[in-house]
């Protein structure tokens, strides 16, 4: 039986609060922790069948044109080479998140430098790699390809439904007492999940099994089937352990389709692992952005107008574009508004979702602009934000489902000793280091995605959760077990959660921070179904049933579950769908960041000294996993502020820094003491768990707090991220001149 809910209205009843097992909301350890510390958790490339061949992808070395010829014979003559696959079904780039259908296919039309165009298959990995490197290619290149979004010849799209204008911002800018009018840029970023993309494909007749590294299996199954021209039911994808995702594994990728085609052609399993360089070149990047922000405020700092116009880029034909302004319409007040969104079509690696598409970079620029307004008006940055929190979503005149930005700002300011900050820049010095403090708001839209789960109460009184949901490091195994344990009155060691297999009910997948809340709701509903069945067996009503420690308590009876089950098992299914609540109220998560930096007065080098994040995301299902998500998100923010930057060759657009030697992720030495505070909140509009997404909130605006701290330390305003020392040192010199 299936228990179903469509989120059309508030769910007033807090079912989890009525339960007594007391595992929800507790900082419990991961059930899969022991496997991961033993090297026993199988990732995509860890289940290599004995007879498997290896495939290595071959890349295009031009950015636009046609593949005319490959010297296949020479490579086929090399030792161990089994095949060179250049099938028309190969993918140009991965599918965008939740596409559910194949992306653009065909390896011969080249759209970007690094595009996979063939797969060389050999008996060993070393032979395949050599074959792929030795394969001579002849391209007919189109020398006119546009590879930079700021190229005056670039084709710029201005989608009508993504422009919005209310009131008269130009006039507001004229009459305002305080204004900011500036351009901010962020470079391209990569997810850089630690596990490079890999797939092992194995056919049994016309049925395909793929061990992959993917975030959203129900969509990936549809995408893979569509790419291969087969039925979904012929495809099974397994991804029980995924070595990080951050958006890079949302859609089926070239390596999966290539492995499947090669395995079919050769009649043996084929494994394709991308090298890190290939992941950089042919998996999604976050688009670089150019953001024109205008702020108009009155004498007291109250915003009367906000303009946020973004230019992003993507390949021709791609539907996704970085939704830079996503939080701008509802974060602050102001009657006069302009939202603009333009897309430059460029021949660069495909742009797609990287952790918190939109707010990660959009809010960062907006929050730097707010700091500029604070400096221009002489109003404290925390106060400036507090006085501009709207009572309703100003863009749609609808209420907020819940809203804790003010609490997050106040709590953060208190804990960080914000009142010790000197408002005039460059006032604090520690030897050759200039010290400054900065802050920013955090905000991220909250989403619910259709999801299903099955829960079984086994005859021995243990519970099993099954869904094709993934755990990409986020803690899904943990929180789903907690929800089932709470609802069924089972201790954690009596609940097993099975994930990452399309044989299980289709879930939301991991992405957009919606996984735990969407899929967790499906688990809660499935458990309600089981509770109903238990009531029938015990002849009681739902109100009268208490489940705890593997026992049912009804009236004055306490009965062990196996006794009630009497050799049988109970199965419940849960199904949640988004509904009218999406339009009735504005749902978002909020928070605040506070950062203290030291900028070297001689070299311009910035060192983050301490950082605090305060976040509200509804009910926190597990503070240990939630906190870790926030720490990781803020660390992404440190990278965005100080080091991370994709660099493209101006001639052909290729990524110059396509490895971890040259693309600088934050390392241990870059990460100082970071504190995370999670505020207590319930959001009854979000879902029956009253929980919201938290995986992305910690990056949205984080970099701004650091950049704003650099300003406070030095008086130097960085508007082009990352704030590397070359951008700071000029300003330092002019200060000392």
């Amino acid at each position, binding site marked *: 039986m299936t228990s179903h809910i469509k989120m059309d209205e508030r769910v007033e009843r807090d079912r989890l609060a009525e339960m007594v097992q007391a595992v929800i909301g507790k900082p419990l350890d991961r059930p899969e922790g022991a496997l991961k*510390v033993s090297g026993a958790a199988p990732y995509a490339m860890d289940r290599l069948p004995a007879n498997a061949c290896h495939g290595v992808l071959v890349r295009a070395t031009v950015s636009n044109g046609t593949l005319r010829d490959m010297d296949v014979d020479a490579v086929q003559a090399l030792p161990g080479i089994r095949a060179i696959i250049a099938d028309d079904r190969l993918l140009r780039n991965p599918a965008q998140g939740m596409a559910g259908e194949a992306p653009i296919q065909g390896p011969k039309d080249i759209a970007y430098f690094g595009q996979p165009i063939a797969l060389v298959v050999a008996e060993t990995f070393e032979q395949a790699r050599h074959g792929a490197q030795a394969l001579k290619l002849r391209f007919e290149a189109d020398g006119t390809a546009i590879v930079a979004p700021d190229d005056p010849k670039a084709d710029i799209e201005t989608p009508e439904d993504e422009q919005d204008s209310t009131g008269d911002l130009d006039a507001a800018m004229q009459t305002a007492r305080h204004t900011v009018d500036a351009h901010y840029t962020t470079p391209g970023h990569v997810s850089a999940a630690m596990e490079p993309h890999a797939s092992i494909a194995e056919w049994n007749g016309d049925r395909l099994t793929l061990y992959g590294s993917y975030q959203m299996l129900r969509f990936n199954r549809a995408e893979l089937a569509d790419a291969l021209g087969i039925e979904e039911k012929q495809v099974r994808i397994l991804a029980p352990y995924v070595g*990080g995702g951050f958006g890079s594994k949302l859609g089926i990728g070239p390596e999966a389709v290539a492995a499947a085609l090669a395995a079919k052609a050769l009649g043996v399993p084929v494994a394709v692992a991308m090298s890190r360089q290939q992941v950089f070149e042919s998996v999604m990047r976050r688009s670089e952005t150019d953001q024109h922000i205008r702020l108009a405020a009155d004498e007291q700092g109250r915003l009367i107008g906000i303009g946020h116009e973004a230019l992003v880029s993507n390949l021709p034909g791609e539907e996704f574009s970085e939704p830079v302004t996503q939080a701008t319409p509802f974060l602050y007040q102001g009657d006069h508004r302009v939202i603009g969104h333009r897309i430059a079509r460029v021949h660069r690696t495909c742009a797609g979702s990287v952790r918190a598409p939109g707010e990660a970079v959009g809010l960062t620029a907006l929050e730097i602009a707010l700091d500029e307004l604070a400096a221009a008006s002489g109003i404290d940055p925390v106060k400036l934000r507090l006085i501009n929190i709207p009572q309703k979503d100003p863009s749609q005149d609808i209420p907020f489902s819940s809203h804790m930005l003010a609490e997050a700002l106040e709590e953060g300011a208190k804990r960080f000793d914000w009142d010790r900050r000197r408002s005039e820049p460059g006032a604090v010095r520690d030897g050759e280091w200039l010290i400054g403090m900065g802050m920013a708001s955090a905000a991220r839209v909250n989403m619910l995605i259709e999801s299903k789960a099955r829960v079984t109460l086994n005859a021995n009184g243990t519970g099993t959760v099954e869904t094709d949901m993934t755990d990409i490091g986020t803690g899904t195994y943990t929180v789903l077990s907690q929800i089932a344990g709470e609802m069924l009155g089972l201790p954690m060691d009596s609940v097993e959660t099975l994930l990452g297999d399309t044989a299980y009910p289709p879930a939301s997948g991991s992405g957009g921070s919606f996984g735990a809340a969407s899929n967790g709701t499906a688990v809660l509903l499935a458990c309600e179904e089981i509770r109903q069945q238990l009531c029938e067996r015990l002849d009681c009503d739902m109100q009268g049933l208490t489940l705890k420690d593997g026992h049912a308590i009804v009236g004055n009876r306490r009965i062990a579950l196996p006794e009630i089950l009497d050799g049988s098992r109970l199965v419940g299914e849960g199904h949640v769908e988004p509904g009218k609540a999406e339009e009735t109220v504005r749902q978002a998560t909020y928070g605040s960041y506070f950062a203290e930096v030291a900028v070297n007065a001689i070299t311009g080098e910035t060192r983050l000294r301490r950082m605090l994040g305060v976040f509200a995301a509804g009910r926190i299902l597990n503070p240990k996993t939630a906190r870790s998500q926030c720490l990781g998100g803020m660390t992404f923010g440190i990278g965005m502020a100080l080091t991370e930057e994709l660099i493209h060759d101006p001639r052909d657009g290729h990524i110059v820094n396509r490895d971890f030697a040259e693309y600088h992720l934050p390392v241990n030495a870059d990460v100082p003491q970071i504190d995370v505070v999670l505020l207590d909140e319930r959001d009854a509009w979000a879902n029956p768990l009253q929980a919201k997404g938290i995986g992305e909130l910690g990056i949205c605006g984080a970099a701004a707090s650091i950049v704003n701290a650099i300003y406070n330390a030095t008086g130097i305003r960085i508007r082009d991220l990352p704030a590397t020392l070359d951008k700071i040192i000029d300003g330092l010199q002019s200060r000392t001149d």
Partner: protein
Amino acid sequence: MTISVSMTVNGKTVSGDVEGRTLLVQFLREQLHLTGTHVGCDTSQCGACVVHVDGQSVKSCTILAAQANGTEVVTIEGLADGATLHPMQEAFREHHGLQCGFCTPGMLATGYDIVRRLPDADEARIRRELSGNICRCTGYHNIVKAIKAGAEKMSAA
């Protein structure tokens, strides 16, 4: 050209035929099926492939299998004592020193090595010593905490 290699891995003598270009990590993963050692970056930055070779922590993607001939190798699979986790493994599990788990075997191998060389390392020193290991999920905090806790457990053991 194939080369015959023989070494001790996790206490057992193993041998196999490799190519001159075969990396130790590939030999461990593909021939010995010790897949706990991971390949994360291909350029020796990330440290997901750290193992111990003759008692020293080594990135197994920077050494050829042939170079490891005659050595004693310990991988993540060899750290536990049967079903009992090593104190460092227990500390990582307990202190949430991991999320996705992909960098974890390398972090553990490095962490174990740090504690053995510098049993009294403070937080700052641990961070410095972890310079060759990258994690994208956790922000490192719980990893540093786990190594400190692991050090205490190891000295108590």
